[in-house]
């Protein structure tokens, strides 16, 4: 019986080892913000409701701009955390804006309902991708200060504690 237990424990250890080795590295995917803190490019894009969202109206708020898609696994993992973050810091001035890079709005509408998203989502295009330096991989998120400048850029799945720390810091400025 002792042998069986040891085999079982070894099996779990191997599986856990494989799991952690296969996980995408978060820290490696991070990129620092440009030192000159460029102004976030303005845009006007249709929301899922059909209304246009003018990005400049959020000047004065701390904005987390998230480029994502419904078919992107790491993006989907981040969304519930963003929903929590939006609820927690809305009053202090945080505004999350999602930019879907899906090819059409239908799956995004379903996703929006299913995940009870509580912040606006616009349908992105190649132009906005290029204006933000090329969105050639997902997810990519930008943290923008009240002054409209880009403070950080995160490529790939990023731990929510990283976002929260930066959001709190920007909200206090």
């Amino acid at each position: 019986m002792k042998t069986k237990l040891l085999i079982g424990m070894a099996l779990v250890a191997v599986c856990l080892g494989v799991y952690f080795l296969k996980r995408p590295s978060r820290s490696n995917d991070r990129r620092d913000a440009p030192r000159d803190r460029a102004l976030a490019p303005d845009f006007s894009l249709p929301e899922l409701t059909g209304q246009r969202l003018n990005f400049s109206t959020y000047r004065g708020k701390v904005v987390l701009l998230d480029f994502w898609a419904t078919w992107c696994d790491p993006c989907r993992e981040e969304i519930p955390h963003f929903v929590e973050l939006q609820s927690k810091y809305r009053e202090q001035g945080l505004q999350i804006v999602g930019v879907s890079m899906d090819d059409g709005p239908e799956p995004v509408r379903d996703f929006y309902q299913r995940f009870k998203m509580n912040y606006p989502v616009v349908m992105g295009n190649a132009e906005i991708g290029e204006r933000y330096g090329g969105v050639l991989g997902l997810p990519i998120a930008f943290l923008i200060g009240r002054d409209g400048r880009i403070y950080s850029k995160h490529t790939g799945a990023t731990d929510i504690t990283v976002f929260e720390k930066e959001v709190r810091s920007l909200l206090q400025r």
Partner: protein
Amino acid sequence: MKMKRTFKNSGILLTLGLALIVLISVASASQASLIPPSQLINPDELVKILQSSKGEKPLMIQVGSHVLYSQAHIPGSEYIGPANSDGGLQQLRQRVQSLPRSKFIIIYCGCCPWSHCPNVKPASDALRALGFTNVKVLYIATNFGADWVDKGYSVAKGD
């Protein structure tokens, strides 16, 4: 004695259950990682093939998002649609149906880190199921921006 045996059996079942959950989560999170290395091609190898004046040029198909394709894609490659959807797979099958099964085909995506790409494995499987024998998947470790554009390889924009 009976209670002790039940407890031990429960322990073994719990252990096996945990192992199964971990294995399932690994498999689902790394679909592209299941593609055998022999079926992959690295960006620098592809560039050499494209630059060479000899040899058969591949049919290159992007099987990811159109928004990403519009921003940047490999010159000469065709957009088909996300192969994790039925529509995308159908378009892929239609595109290749009249081609000889020995046609050199390269598929790529680059939407996400390799282990999370939902598109390349279904596309590769579909082509092999149709009988294509010379299919390679472009190995893009991080994303198309980091592993192709930032490396300075040739890029085209638009539809």
